[in-house]
C-alpha cells in the first residue's frame, strides 16, 4: 500500500511541476497580456492543485491533509478573483483590444 501511495505522490507532483513549467514558460512567451494571464492562472490552479493532491498521502495526519485542501481552495478562490481584477486592470491600462 505504501508503494502505491508513493508512486501516486511522485506522479501527481511531477505533473504539477510540469504545469508550473508550462505556466511560467507561457508567462514569458505569450504576446498579449490577457493570454499571459490565461497561462498564469493555469499554472496556479493546476500546478498547485496537483502538488497538494500529491502531498495528501504523505501528510502525517488527516487533519493536516484537510488543511492542505483548505489552502488549495483558498488559493483557487483568491486566484479566480485576482485574475478578474488583473484582467480589468490590464484592459483599462493597456491599449484596448
Amino acid at each position, binding site marked *: 500500500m505504501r508503494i502505491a501511495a508513493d508512486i501516486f505522490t511522485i506522479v501527481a507532483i511531477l505533473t504539477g511541476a510540469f504545469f508550473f513549467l508550462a505556466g511560467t514558460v507561457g508567462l514569458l512567451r505569450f504576446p498579449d497580456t490577457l493570454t499571459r494571464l490565461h497561462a498564469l492562472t493555469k499554472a496556479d490552479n493546476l500546478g498547485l492543485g496537483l502538488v497538494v493532491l500529491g502531498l495528501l498521502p504523505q501528510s502525517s495526519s488527516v487533519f493536516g491533509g484537510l488543511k492542505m485542501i483548505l489552502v488549495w481552495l483558498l488559493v483557487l478562490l483568491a486566484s479566480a478573483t*485576482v485574475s478578474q481584477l488583473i484582467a480589468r486592470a490590464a484592459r483599462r491600462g493597456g491599449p484596448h483590444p
Partner: protein
Amino acid sequence: MTSFLLAMTFFVVVMVAVGLFCVLRGASNADRMMAVQLFGTGGIAALLLAGVANGTEGVVEVVLTLSVLAAFAAVAFVKADESGAKDDDRPEQGP
C-alpha cells in the same frame, strides 16, 4: 521520497525565479502583478513541499497566511492602479 520532494521544491523555486524575470521585462504593470501572483502560488507550493519533506506540521498555517497575503497584494495593486483612472469605470462610450 524526501529527496524527491526537496528536488521538486527546488524545481518550483527555479520556475518562480524564471517567472519573476518577467517583472523586470514585463510590458505593463499587469504583467508584473501576474509574476507576483505566480511568486505567491509558487511560494505556496514550494513551502508545502518542503514542509511535508521535513515532516513539520506547522508549515500549513504559514502557507495559509501566504495565500491570503498574495491575494491582498493583487487587490492592493488593482486599487492603486484604479485610483489613477477613476472615470474609466463607466462602460465604453466609444473610441
